[in-house]
């Protein structure tokens, strides 16, 4: 399906927010849209950069791999950018993006993206600040996760999920999306067994409840207070 920037209602999208009305039809003309079923790879680490991706709907995980070990470094949902980590001198995607559920992702060729950045100063300015925030978040994560205990790492993982996807619109203590347990361990940077033990300990203390695959948060204030990544 062709998605048009000029009639889009995704108001948090950087293109919608910061590009001039003249540029939106031009971007629409060049961009393409693809449907990715859950588990499909959108781009892989090492691929040359061809463009920037924007999530129209769905949920995506961004991962780095060290041999067989996968570390989730970001969770993203609709209206967010993907593939921006590859822009720079090397022009290679350093990470892999995988759909967590059926997702629609639009693609903007890199030359069109650059032209839009050059022609829209506010877009360029906001992109710079976006990168600055990403750099800060990456360094905070690196600085802290190395010294955290397993339970603290799992709390950071839970807060990462809450901040990325929030709570269900109909049930405000139930996570809107609970990744599979293996992915929660990848976000936390712990083994599966350690993560299961930490979730059990949080459940015992009435901080969370595990309802099948889903997780309900009973004490958000506790998680916020003990999320040492902030």
């Amino acid at each position, binding site marked *: 399906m062709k998605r048009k920037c000029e009639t889009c209602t995704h108001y948090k999208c950087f293109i919608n927010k910061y590009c001039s009305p003249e540029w939106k039809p031009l971007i629409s003309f060049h961009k393409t849209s693809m449907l990715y079923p859950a588990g499909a790879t959108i781009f892989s680490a090492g691929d040359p950069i061809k463009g920037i991706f924007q999530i129209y709907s769905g949920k995506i995980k961004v991962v*780095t791999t*060290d041999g067989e070990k996968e570390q989730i*470094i970001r969770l993203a949902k609709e209206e967010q950018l993907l593939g*921006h*980590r590859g*822009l*720079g*001198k*090397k022009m290679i995607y*350093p990470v892999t993006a995988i759909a967590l559920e059926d997702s629609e992702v639009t693609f903007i060729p890199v030359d069109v993206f*650059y032209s839009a*950045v*050059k*022609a829209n*100063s*506010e877009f*360029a*300015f906001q*992109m*710079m*600040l976006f*990168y*600055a*925030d*990403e*750099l*800060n978040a*990456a*360094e*905070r994560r*690196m*600085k802290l996760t190395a010294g955290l205990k397993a339970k603290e790492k799992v709390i950071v993982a839970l807060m990462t999920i809450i901040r990325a996807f929030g709570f269900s619109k109909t049930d405000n203590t139930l996570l809107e999306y609970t990744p599979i347990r293996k992915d929660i361990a990848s976000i936390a940077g712990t083994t599966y067994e350690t993560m299961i033990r930490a979730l059990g300990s949080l459940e015992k203390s009435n901080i969370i409840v595990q309802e099948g695959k889903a997780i309900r948060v009973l004490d958000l204030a506790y998680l916020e207070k003990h999320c040492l990544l902030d």
Partner: protein
Amino acid sequence: MNCNNCTNKRCPINMYCLPDWLAYTQNSKSSLYLTANYSIFNAGELVKGIYILCSGKAKVMLEKETSKVDIIRLAGSGQVLGHRGFSEKMVYPLSAKTLNESEIASISNEDFFKLVRENKDLAVYMMMFFADELLLSEQSFQISGMQTSREKVAYTLVRVINAFKYADNTSRQIDFGISLHELATFAKISRTSFSRTLAKFIEEGILRKRIWNYYVADEVALANLAGIEIQ
């Protein structure tokens, strides 16, 4: 250094701002003349602006609770400092100190944002600069966890060369600018391991040593070991 007739080809303001804006920067910036080992900004301080090293060398450090210091980045003439503070909190997450006598231009947040908004080439450059910093930062993390001493030393040498350039381009003399102890801190290995690895590189023909100076004999081998390019 006067922005109107500056010849520094590594300074983003000089390279990407229009002439009128160079004059504006010259009038609005503050020039700081600092001695070696002088603090430029400290972690936790509010971000007042961005700094450009007009001349000299600086190190950017993470001071840990254990009073241990990790050197995160080295910067040479024309390079930007303090950009890591631009975030929602507007607080410097790291500290920076001069390594030798340096001239530093301090540009306020307001003026820097004005420059970025009004000079599209500067805006694109800054976006790409942050993209590179993000990549480099994640690579550094992987390196500290994964690599051998050889790779760590090669990585450190390439970061030094990319920050300070060669002292002499023809002979490819490395301009270390910091002590062996600090180089080892940057590489996250002991000073002894660092020296031993340098000696090994000389044996293998990757480096040459004449008196106290080190020269790169095989750039390709060094860059391959480091996993990053020499720029």
